[in-house]
């Protein structure tokens, strides 16, 4: 079977003409450098040795971060640009939903624009006349079709553009992120239209950032990164690999955030011993909410309590007992910065007591980006009576299920006396991210399920 789309070892190198100093014909003529000036000074590889084939009737998704060459690949398939090397073969009539209504002329009516746009996309006048009502109906523009296009809202404009392009009746449909615009209703309509296309055995090439769409819709997926194919095959597997890489990138970012925060507080600490002279004594354990109930024996708590809620990074304490390392561990015990909601997470402190101690409390609290304390606790609140701490030890707080909604969180860790005298207090120095497939809101996700009685039914999600 001949493939609908075939890319063989395709590279596209964009030339950058911006390097040209005097971009005028006159100077080019004077210096006899027309040909030299028309040749590129700088190049940028948008695609490198990309090969893939799409069999007829398949829906093929292309994913990847911004600037990975997705749109370039689409333009190559559409024939708008030519590959620098390699070959692109497309069998059948192509319609590209790249820029909807790109050819509309604002001054003339929607009706005339439909005809001209249709002709541009390769239809004959008669074919358009036959489909005209369908096009207008799909765009829901019956009332306005004779008004000049410049009076249209951007939504009307786009709907009309989509309606024309989709009614070209292509064998191969190229879709570039057009669903990102438009309201819910119209997006649904478009998706229905795509589904209809699939049923008719048409080929769809879809470029999108919506991974859910690829997962639901596509038979195959391709992951592009910096112009190269990173993965190709089953959409689910490609997306998982892609997400894993995205997480890795995030991990690196979070790791560097944490390292930066640590570096910022430890630099002055080496000289002065205390990085925050204005709060040498924070009488609070790392659990402000719980501490409030203990506020009876802690007189000067108020201003410091205020301080607790201010999201200022820092580190202070006498360092008689020192927290030398803080690591977040995932279920497998691997250091990590990205967790999924509901995953296990352990906070591991490496603690070093310079002299044996008998009065100590370990505390941990979690804050979200708004500075809200999501949870805080310490060993004192949990009624663990300190007895002995000597030498280098490890303290781990194991959270079995991290029931937080998606977001970025920061961590306080501390070791202090039962009275609140800080040995070593790390304020908001550690950052981690919680990811979730459910876009639920709030802070906390209680374990839950839905129960229905009576005649309640939901459609199966594919």
């Amino acid at each position, binding site marked *: 079977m001949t493939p609908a789309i075939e890319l063989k070892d395709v590279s596209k190198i*964009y*030339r950058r*003409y911006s390097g040209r100093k005097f*971009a*005028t*014909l*006159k100077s*080019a003529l004077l210096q006899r450098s027309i040909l030299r*000036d*028309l040749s590129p000074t700088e190049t940028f590889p948008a695609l490198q040795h990309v090969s893939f084939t799409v069999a007829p009737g398949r829906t093929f998704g292309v994913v990847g971060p911004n600037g990975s060459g997705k749109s370039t690949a689409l*333009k190559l398939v*559409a*024939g*708008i*640009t*030519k590959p620098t090397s390699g070959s692109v073969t497309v069998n059948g009539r*192509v319609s*590209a939903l*790249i*820029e909807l209504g*790109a*050819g509309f*002329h604002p*001054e*003339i009516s929607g009706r*005339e624009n439909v*005809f*001209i746009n249709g*002709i*541009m*996309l390769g239809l*004959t*006048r008669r074919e358009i006349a036959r489909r005209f009502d369908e096009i207008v109906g799909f765009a829901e523009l019956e009332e306005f079709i004779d008004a*000049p296009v410049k009076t249209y809202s951007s939504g009307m404009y786009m709907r009309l553009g989509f309606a024309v392009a989709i009614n070209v009746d292509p064998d191969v449909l190229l879709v570039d992120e057009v669903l990102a615009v438009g309201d819910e209703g119209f997006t649904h309509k478009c998706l229905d239209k795509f589904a209809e296309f699939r049923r008719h055995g048409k080929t769809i090439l879809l470029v999108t950032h919506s991974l859910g769409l690829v997962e639901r819709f596509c038979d195959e997926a391709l992951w592009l990164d910096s112009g190269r194919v990173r993965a190709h095959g089953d959409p689910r597997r490609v997306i998982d690999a892609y997400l894993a890489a995205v997480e890795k990138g995030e991990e690196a970012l979070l790791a560097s955030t944490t390292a930066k925060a640590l570096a910022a507080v430890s630099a002055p600490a080496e000289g002065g011993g205390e990085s925050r002279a204005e709060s040498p004594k924070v009488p609070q354990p790392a659990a402000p909410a719980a501490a409030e109930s203990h506020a009876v024996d802690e007189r000067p708590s108020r201003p410091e309590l205020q301080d607790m809620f201010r999201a200022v990074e820092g580190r202070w304490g006498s360092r008689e007992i020192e927290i030398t390392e803080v690591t977040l561990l995932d279920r497998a015990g691997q250091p990590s910065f990205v967790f999924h909601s509901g995953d296990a997470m352990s906070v591991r402190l490496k603690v070093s007591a310079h002299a044996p101690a008998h009065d100590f409390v370990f505390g941990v609290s979690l804050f979200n980006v708004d500075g809200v304390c999501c949870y805080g606790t310490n060993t004192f609140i949990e009624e663990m009576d300190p007895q002995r701490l000597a030498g280098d030890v490890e303290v781990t707080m194991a959270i079995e299920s991290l029931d937080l909604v998606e977001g970025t969180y920061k961590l306080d860790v501390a070791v202090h006396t039962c009275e609140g005298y800080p040995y070593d207090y790390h304020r908001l120095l550690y950052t981690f991210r919680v990811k979730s497939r459910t876009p639920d809101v709030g802070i906390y996700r209680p374990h839950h399920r839905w129960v229905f009685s009576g005649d309640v039914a939901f459609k199966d999600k594919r």
Partner: protein
Amino acid sequence: MFRNLSRLVRYRGLIHSLVARELKARYRGSVLGFLWSFINPLLLLSIYSFIFTTIMPNREPGLQPYALFMLCGILPWTWFAASLTEASGSLIAGGNLIKKVLFPAEVLPLVSVLANMVHFFLALPIVALMLIVYQHWPDAAGLLWLPLVVLVQLVFTSGIALGLAALTVHFRDIRDILANMLMLWFFSTPIIYAWYQKEVLPYRWLFNLNPFTHLAVSYQEILFFYGPYDHWRWLLALGVASIGIFLAGYWLFDRLRDSFAEVV
């Protein structure tokens, strides 16, 4: 190149509707609409007539009525000049099409030329009207040459338009240079004076090098002067040259075609 060129025939439907759109859109929203196609040349004509019949009159004996004589040259010149001006900016103006849609870019400059040709045709009734008013009858057999002159001008203009459009994408200042060049070109073409005037004679060879001279003279001989059309050898030579110019312009356009989507 020749394969692309042959594709151009397939685009005739597209060209046709784009020209129609261009004409409709131009006067959409203006009160007088298509009347402007008449009014514009008439205004221009009245200015020139006033200057050259009243203020600094051209009394050359064969050139009366002078207004009619001038009109024969100004109308084709307007077609030519407006075509080039519009064509040179056409690819930049249609950048959306070139970048986002699979679109034969050469259609855009050709549409500029053809839309202005329609304006030229719409202004021809003015000439007819004036011929009647002045009772000035041209040679009937000569009129048969008119379509050929128009065709030569069409091919000639299209060739230059294609080349200019392609180059303007890379050198935007062509549009400014062009405005000045056209001004110079206008005055060095026998439109407001006759090419047989004794002041022109010493530079005759220079005038012969100007292709538009032969077009202007052809129009004048056919529409204005009495007697049979006898500039046809020049016209045919220009016709052959125009085909060369068209091919050269198209070749240049085709060479640069792939850069349009990236540079526009």
